[in-house]
């Protein structure tokens, strides 16, 4: 049944074209078609994931050109989990975007293209094909960021475009080095041939350096994160939720895939510098991201800097390179998508209802919007890593892995990251629950809104779909921690292959 794998990519792409053509006939047909496509995508991704966990590895050869000559699509446990995440989160955000988001058909077409591009990055087994999908995801993400109505989103999108393209180009340059050394682009073939060339050779090391730095930019590792706060804060609310949940997540997945599948742990064992690069990126990101998050006054910017710090943790899990830490990295990667996506959506929900976009405006929020404030608090605590939430389990495994590998300084930073995260979330929760609003509560319509969007113009009433998406994220973040142990068992065979 490996024939189903290409449909994972093709379905959203075809649906995007359908949405565009439907827009020629009638306006605002984008949402129902996108939901249908999303439901189909979730069902397909779920089915393929079940097959993958049964078989261990599914491979599909595109166009009948046998690998390593043709493009191969490969699914293993890790990619199956990320594909299901992409399908589910993109469907969930559609529920939110019905009233909150831009509503044109062009928006939904771009949305579906981004889903297709991200899925492509995950399933492809060919490094150049991955570049193409990275650029598809990149282009559509820039367009989505620019879909806000203000000039701010256009500036943010242009900055994102320039920095993001440099990242993708560096990745391409790295692929070029690997190709010159080996004459192949297939992931499985590359890992064998790179080892034949010799991991210590300058060519291989340069290839890794370019690919890693390129993906660092895409993942937004400090100090290469500069595009991210601007892009997340400048985008419309549903878009920031979407790209914060999925885009960097997918590129972090790509980094894991390239590091473990193409370069293999043997490369890191031989080239100490490569591992140091990962560890340094992780440590600097965790600390600097948190410090920058504390210094922000705008909620969405704060959440964006928090992403820098959380992806440092995922990077740490990768750099430790034992099974426990990798389980932790995977769980935190998936969990971060749910938590951070939910937090951005909650921030958008609160902004829609009250116009509050600054931290100081959150005072006494729990009385005005008890459900939204509650969901925000649950997601924030999960991000901090309070047991038994999803965020706790991921961090716990990563820290445990670091201890097992006896990387004490890294273990200390990972544990400290919990406190650092608490530093910027605690003050928000404190404001929401333990402070009275500074003055008599202003009417929502009279609140000066720095970023008027379509929803406020409609009267500023958040819809049921918006609440549903936020509450679903909060419930998942609180409950899914219990599902991690069976998930780790499912993931076990995949990680053994990755680490061998």
């Amino acid at each position: 049944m490996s024939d189903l794998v290409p449909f994972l990519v093709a379905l959203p792409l075809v649906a995007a074209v359908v949405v565009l053509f439907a827009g020629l006939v009638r306006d605002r047909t984008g949402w129902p078609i996108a939901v249908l496509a999303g439901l189909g995508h979730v069902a397909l991704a779920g089915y393929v994931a079940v097959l993958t966990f049964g078989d261990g590895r599914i491979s599909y050869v595109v166009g009948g050109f046998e690998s390593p000559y043709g493009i191969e699509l490969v699914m293993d446990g890790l990619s199956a989990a990320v594909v299901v995440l992409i399908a589910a989160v993109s469907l969930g955000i559609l529920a939110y975007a019905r009233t909150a988001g831009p509503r044109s058909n062009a928006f939904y077409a771009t949305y579906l293209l981004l889903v297709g591009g991200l899925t492509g990055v995950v399933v492809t087994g060919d490094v150049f094909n991955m570049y193409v999908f990275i650029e598809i995801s990149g282009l559509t993400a820039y367009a989505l960021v620019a879909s806000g109505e203000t000039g701010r989103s256009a500036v943010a999108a242009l900055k994102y475009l320039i920095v993001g393209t440099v990242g993708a180009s560096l990745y391409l340059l790295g692929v070029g080095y690997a190709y010159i050394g080996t004459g192949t682009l297939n992931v499985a073939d590359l890992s064998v041939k790179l080892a034949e060339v010799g991991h210590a050779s300058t060519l291989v090391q340069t290839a890794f350096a370019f690919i890693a730095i390129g993906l660092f930019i895409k993942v937004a590792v400090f100090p290469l994160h500069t595009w991210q706060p601007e892009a997340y804060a400048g985008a419309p609310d549903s878009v920031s939720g979407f790209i914060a949940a999925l885009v960097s997540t997918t590129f972090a997945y790509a980094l894991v895939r390239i590091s473990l599948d193409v370069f293999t742990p043997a490369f890191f064992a031989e080239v100490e510098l490569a591992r140091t690069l990962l560890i340094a990126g992780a440590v600097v990101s965790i600390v600097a991201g948190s410090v920058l998050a504390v210094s922000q006054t705008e909620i969405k910017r704060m959440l964006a800097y928090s992403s820098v710090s959380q992806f440092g943790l995922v990077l740490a899990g990768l750099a430790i390179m034992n099974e426990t830490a990798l389980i932790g990295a995977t769980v935190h990667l998936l969990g971060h998508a749910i938590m951070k996506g939910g937090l951005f959506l909650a921030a958008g929900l609160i902004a829609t209802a009250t116009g509050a976009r600054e931290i100081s405006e959150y005072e006494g929020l729990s009385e005005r919007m008890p459900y939204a404030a509650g969901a925000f608090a649950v997601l924030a605590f999960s991000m901090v890593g309070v047991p038994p939430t999803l965020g706790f389990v991921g961090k716990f495994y990563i820290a445990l892995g670091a201890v097992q590998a006896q990387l004490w300084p890294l273990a200390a930073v990972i544990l400290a990251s919990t406190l650092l995260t608490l530093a910027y979330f605690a003050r928000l929760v404190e404001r929401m629950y333990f402070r009275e609003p500074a003055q008599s509560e202003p009417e929502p319509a009279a609140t000066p809104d720095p970023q008027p969007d379509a929803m406020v113009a409609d009267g500023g009433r958040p819809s049921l779909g918006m609440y549903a998406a936020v509450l679903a994220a909060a419930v998942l973040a609180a409950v899914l921690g219990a599902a991690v142990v069976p998930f780790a068992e499912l993931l076990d065979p995949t990680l053994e292959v990755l680490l061998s």
Partner: protein
Amino acid sequence: MIDLAAGPVDLLATRSYYAGTFLLLGIGAYVMIASPNLVKKVIGLNVFQTGIFLFFITSAYVDGAANPVLEHAGPYVSPLPHVLILTAIVVGVSLTAVALGLIVRIYDEYGTLEADVLREVRTDE
């Protein structure tokens, strides 16, 4: 692989395309960072990407080899990097189009293309 005994002059002469690649990468990166004009930043981006295209094409070059068309006698130039770069050029063109579209919107909104002026205008937001 590189014959270091040949000296730097010979090395540059035989690897002039690789030198050109990294010259283009450097120029592109410099323009992107140093030029305050948004359009020039995009031009810098294009130069940067062109450097990478050249890098791939150079890697396919085989001295004295024929086009990869079956009527010629071998050895052939490797066709694969050309195909890859064709794809990458398409990606580059779309990126440029999106970037220029964004620049048009920024100009409509703020009436400037200079990054430093833009920063000043936007502090009032």
